[in-house]
């Protein structure tokens, strides 16, 4: 690597870093502020942005000299009390075209633990906005990030990399949307006060469901869950008589057998024949009698059904990776062509092969 300005990214992510170490690497608010302060006074570092999420810490920057990046790493290791040698074993790094490609790959969700997730784009935008407000980005990173956001959106629009939900709770919500269209006016009943039911209920709330009720075989267990969710609590002995009042029933009790049988569902449907009733049975053994699914306007999905849909969606996303990478390669090359004159230290463009813990001058991203 020459001593001319060059674009780089260096960091660590879930690919190479176990959870316990990622916890150690993650920057809290105070440490983040201190680290950015350190970087802003680091000689030779023209521009920088720090991306700090639960799955990755990455520093994107424009350095004036080859040893600047090493100093950035030393600062980070010093702040987090990590031996530089240990960090070198887990880090990923890239320069020039590789750094550009890595930024787009990350923003498009291709490098995420949950392939195609969209939260990372928001986190990257937040990191860039923070850098803008601190005035630590300049002409190179401004262009890199603005184009990265555009290209990430292009990848998501032109491939199926983000299509289909890949968590059981979100698959359940997606199915509910296919039945009810809008969740704002649907009443949700949560049977059982377990963690998976609560997570699913939160997923429903995040998509607009406002009317939640919790029932547990032990009323005292229902109360704290209902309070945490901002929901009502229903005594267990009223579940059967009130079943028709709800459009969605999420069942996750630890009962040894079915708690709602076909006859009970049929009785409820007589009171709401034109309105669909959606059962999400997350319990093992199952809480809802499978025969209830035979009834008109009743839809029943159990844990295996939801897991299978999530797995199919994951497979469908994985099948799109190649196409997404091809788009990213093209977009990154075009972007790099425009910014390369501003960072002559990276010329000629490095190879695209990903590499961990390698020399910055020759490495490319691993994600």
């Amino acid at each position, binding site marked *: 690597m020459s001593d001319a300005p060059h674009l780089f990214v260096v960091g660590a992510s879930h690919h190479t870093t176990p959870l316990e170490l990622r916890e150690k690497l993650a920057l809290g608010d105070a440490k983040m502020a201190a680290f950015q302060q350190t970087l802003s006074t680091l000689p030779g570092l023209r521009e920088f942005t720090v991306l700090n999420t639960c799955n990755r810490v990455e520093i994107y920057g424009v350095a004036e000299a080859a040893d600047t990046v090493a100093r950035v790493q030393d600062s980070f290791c010093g702040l987090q009390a990590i031996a530089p040698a240990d960090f070198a074993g887990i880090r990923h790094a890239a320069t020039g075209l590789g750094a550009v490609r890595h930024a787009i790959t990350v923003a498009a969700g291709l490098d995420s633990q949950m392939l195609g997730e969209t939260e990372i784009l928001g986190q990257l935008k937040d990191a860039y906005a923070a850098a803008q407000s601190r005035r630590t980005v300049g002409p190179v990173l401004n262009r890199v990030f603005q184009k990265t956001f555009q290209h990430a959106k292009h990848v998501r629009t032109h491939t199926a990399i983000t299509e289909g939900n890949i968590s059981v709770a979100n698959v359940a919500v997606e199915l509910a949307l*296919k039945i009810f269209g809008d969740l704002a006016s649907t009443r949700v009943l949560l049977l059982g006060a377990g963690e998976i039911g609560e997570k699913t209920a939160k997923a429903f709330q995040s998509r607009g469901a406002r009317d939640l009720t919790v029932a547990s075989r032990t009323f005292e267990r229902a109360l704290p869950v209902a309070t945490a969710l901002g929901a009502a609590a229903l005594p267990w002995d009223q579940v059967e008589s009130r079943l028709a009042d709800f459009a969605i029933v999420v069942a996750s009790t630890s009962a040894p057998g079915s708690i709602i049988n076909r006859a009970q569902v049929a009785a409820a449907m007589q009171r709401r024949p*034109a309105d669909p009733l959606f059962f999400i049975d997350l319990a093992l053994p199952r809480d809802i009698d499978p025969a209830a699914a035979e009834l*008109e306007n009743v*839809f029943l999905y159990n844990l295996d059904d939801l897991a299978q*849909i999530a797995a*199919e969606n994951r497979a469908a996303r994985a099948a799109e990776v190649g196409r997404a990478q091809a788009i990213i390669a093209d977009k990154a090359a075009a972007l790099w062509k425009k910014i390369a004159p501003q960072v002559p230290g990276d010329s000629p463009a490095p190879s695209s092969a990903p590499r961990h813990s390698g020399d910055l001058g020759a490495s490319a991203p691993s994600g």
Partner: protein
Amino acid sequence: MFELTHDRTWLWLAAAAYFGGFALGTTALLRDRRHSHAWMYAIIALGYVLQTTGLYLRGLEVKGCPLGNTFEIFQFTAWSAITLYLVIGPTFRLSLLGYFTCMLTTTLTLSSLAIPSWDAVRRVGIFGGNAWIEFHAALALFSYGVFGLLALTSIMYLLQVFSLKRHHLRGLFSFLPSVRDLDHMNLRLLVTGVALLAASLAVGSAYWLDDTSTVNAPKLLITVAVWLAYTVACVLRVRQVLIAKRLAWTCIILFAIALLSLGPVNSSRQPVEQTAQSQPQR
């Protein structure tokens, strides 16, 4: 040989536009993608303008609303369905409704254009210059357009329920509107269609009652039977007796019967006057 002054030229172009919308939707579905709503709407709107032009020219030729033979009735039914889609499409934003509407109108318009015998006899001035009778007929045919759209949303409803019951959620099924949205749309269309046909019958009856000799009995019986069947379905739906899949199947079967009944109704009429051009331009 296409001539811009000839109505069938415009109607062929309209059919091509509707087929274009159908092809756009099919291509997108085969690629497992959602088609562009803007493009679909634009293509259908273009087809609508072309078809309106064609029907206008035909109207000038037959001196009234062009409802004088099977060809014209199929064209007008398709035009009615498209009119309704252009109004409710952007309001309710039912995914794939444009695609299914294109499928229906392509079938109606292309089949009517492809069968020369349906347009062999052109009746001129069948309404005798009476604007109310013309209005009655147009309203009746418009309600058939509404029932056509209802049949489409019923098909979509059945597909969505099938997909959710059988856990087949990919491909075409992934783009269908929700069960509840489709059910609500079915009810709205059913009420609208029944109301339009009732209004049509009310307008017509004001004249039939004055002079019963002008009544075409088979036409009246079939039209009243269709109206009665849809009205019963509507009442049963409102009372939550005929719901969900049974309602959807009923709406599909009733539309098929209504469409098939147009032939006998039309052939039972006596032409007031026939145009010199009995062989339509292809």
